[in-house]
């Protein structure tokens, strides 16, 4: 059983902590919101972001290294010719599978594949998020064309 003192203490505590809570939440009404209005205001993406790939088809020699290291086999490469004269016909990345682990960028001998800061890719069907970077008629790129500083210190390029 509660004594009257405890009872009154409970009531007092309830009122007091309610006002403590209000004294924290109410001042926020007069502060600037923290949120970004996304399509208008774009958040600052660090250059290290592992977003959608930035692929330079002209540099690629179709060596298949990136497809081999991919843990989920989301890269499909087809090329005509061999070695120096290779001509890409298909470089397809399946973004329904991609882990965005950036392992594919590391073994590339010509540094033609990077991950850029673009983080959104939408489509109505699965096919729309399977992207063929080697499609010359309908080129897709997810950066402004500049090469992003992708500094991997560890066992990249070894």
């Amino acid at each position, binding site marked *: 059983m509660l004594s009257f003192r405890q009872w009154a203490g*409970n009531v007092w*505590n*309830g009122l*007091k*902590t*309610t006002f*403590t*809570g209000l004294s*924290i*939440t109410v001042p926020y009404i007069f502060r600037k919101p*923290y949120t970004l209005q996304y399509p208008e205001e774009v958040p600052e993406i*660090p250059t*290290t*972001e*592992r977003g959608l790939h930035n692929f330079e088809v002209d540099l690629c020699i179709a060596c298949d290294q990136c497809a081999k*290291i*991919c*843990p989920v086999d989301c890269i499909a490469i087809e090329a005509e010719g061999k070695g120096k004269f290779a001509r890409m016909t298909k470089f397809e990345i399946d973004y329904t599978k991609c*882990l*965005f*682990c*950036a*392992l594919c960028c*590391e*073994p590339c001998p010509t540094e033609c594949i990077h*991950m850029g800061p673009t983080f959104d890719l939408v489509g109505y069907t699965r096919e729309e998020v399977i992207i063929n970077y080697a499609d010359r008629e309908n080129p897709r790129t997810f950066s402004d064309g500049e090469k992003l500083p992708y*500094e*991997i*210190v*560890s*066992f*990249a390029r*070894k």
Partner: protein
Amino acid sequence: METIQGVKLNEGERAAPVLPRDIQSDELVFNMGPQHPSTHGVLRLMLRTDGEVVLEAQPLIGNLHRCCEKILENLTYVQGLPYVDRMDYLGAINMEMGLVLPVEKAAGVEVPKRAQYLRVVMCELNRVISHLFAAGQFGLDMGAFTPFLYMFREREEGINVLNEITGGRLLYHYIRYGGVTRDVPKGWIERCLKWCDRVDEHMDEYNSLLTYNHIFLNRTCGVAVLDKETCLDYGVTGPILRAAGVPRDLRKDMPYSCYEDFDFDVPVGPFEKGVAGDSWNRHRQRLREAEESIKIIRQALKNLPEGETQHPKVTRAWKAPAGEAYVASEAPRGEISAYFVSDGGKFPYRMRMRGPSFYNIAVLETCSRGLLIGDLIALMGSVDITLGEVDR
């Protein structure tokens, strides 16, 4: 020993007064989840209740099962690393740590000091983020929406800090065998310290808005008590065990990755209110641990040694020599560890992960008997499981 409606209760299992036995009413069978606001993922609970009083709650898991360990056994060493991020997606770096440590021990790889420090910084950053999320989520379960968003705000900034160095916001893929992916960029240390200050500043706000609120205290103090013995019996680890009064923290007890260099406390329940191992103490434990983690981050960044961040021998095509090892480490939700066997081949021969949430979820069944539905939510919120790691 007390019984309600044929269900035997252990000491401390009953938190709320129940109906007297002479009022007999029918039992309801609820299907809580996989789509329910507070099952935190695709957990399904079969509830047998008498009105509001839960007689039995059986967690049915496996909706997210994807054979994580088997996948690891069929991928090369490098390829496996991004996969473990997907286990506990709220403490991804700690999951990588749990995988990397036994493999390195079995192979005898000595990780450079700088890489070890960086690993510690990232793990602790991730722990703070995870605890902020858990505490906010718990408030949300208790009906307080606002503290959740305040904690999310700091969490978001922490994610940005992590993103700057790792390149990911949730699934980091930062730790590699023999080191870490990237070194610290310019100005990052200052930004990280600034974030630490910010979290410290706001900790009071969370506490007075949520932790010490009278209603919140009444909702959580003495509710769903998981005492020492139950915790130890069920192999419960992490903040839940420490809130129950067992000072077990692998960072202190079996230091790995240079944790012995840092000066930090292991907070142990019970704290100011409630009894050891109740929902409130679990919540308080997380916020206290976040404070301690920030201490560690500050020390590690202050004393960051110079040097390499990657073991020179461990390259992309590296294979672990034949051997086996088991190493446990402290993830935000408890002990993450792996038993690793290598036959010297391209793939790991055997990989077995021990995830904390999988063991923590087991207590739901015993601890939930006799609780009200509102208390069951308090129990689930304060136990804080990640289904990605339970189901693996």
